[in-house]
């Protein structure tokens, strides 16, 4: 089981500059636990201490925004591609 993960520029400090890493997991939560072992600190940038996705991060499985398919409990299949993006937002 191998999941390809696209890492945004701001999180590449956790992946030794790599823009693409691979990980494993049956769910998104497991994938982030697996990734964190090799990419120290990555998980904390995406997942809160309470165990939810940070408000201003977008995570996709293939083209699906994971918020609509179970969040961290979303299921993964071999060959899926996960993309992490900053949610570009702000206000006056």
């Amino acid at each position, binding site marked *: 089981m191998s999941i390809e993960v696209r890492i945004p*520029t701001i999180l590449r400090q956790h992946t030794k500059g790599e823009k693409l890493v691979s990980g494993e997991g049956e769910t998104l939560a497991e994938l982030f636990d697996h990734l964190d072992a090799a990419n120290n600190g990555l998980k904390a940038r995406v997942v809160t201490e309470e165990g939810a996705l940070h408000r201003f*991060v977008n995570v996709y499985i293939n083209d699906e*925004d994971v918020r609509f398919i179970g969040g961290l409990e979303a299921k993964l299949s071999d060959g899926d591609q996960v*993309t992490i993006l*900053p*949610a*570009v*937002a702000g*206000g*006056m």
Partner: protein
Amino acid sequence: MVAHARADHPDEACGLIAGPEGTGRPERHIPMTNAARSTTFYEFDAEEWKREYDRMWDNDEEVVVAYHSHTHTEAYPSRSDAGIASQLGLPGAHYVLVTTKDPETAEVRSFRIADGVITEEPIEVTGAPEAVQSYKFAHTPDSTVYDCH
């Protein structure tokens, strides 16, 4: 950017200018949908952002400019602009702010935002003398540096 901000007024407008990775050259304008459709807040539409990011990835491009408009306040990053950009933002990008609060004159300013610190930078407009002239106060034929000091 100004035309997009004017078109979406009174809502905030937002978008990107992408360029070849590592060059810092803003070459491809990508107007984005403000999913918040708000006069006081903006957020990239998540699906559209993914599509545009994939296109940039395939083209070996990166975000050179991330812009948005303020419709009632000055062209300066707000507390939430700086907070969100610092927490998880686009570290290489120039954050450009456009204000449409005045119907005649748009103000455009550029910033770096990192670790909660906002640093203004000058803007140089080149290569389009007529466009340049319509947005500036004092000009040379084809280039103007807007100093931020």
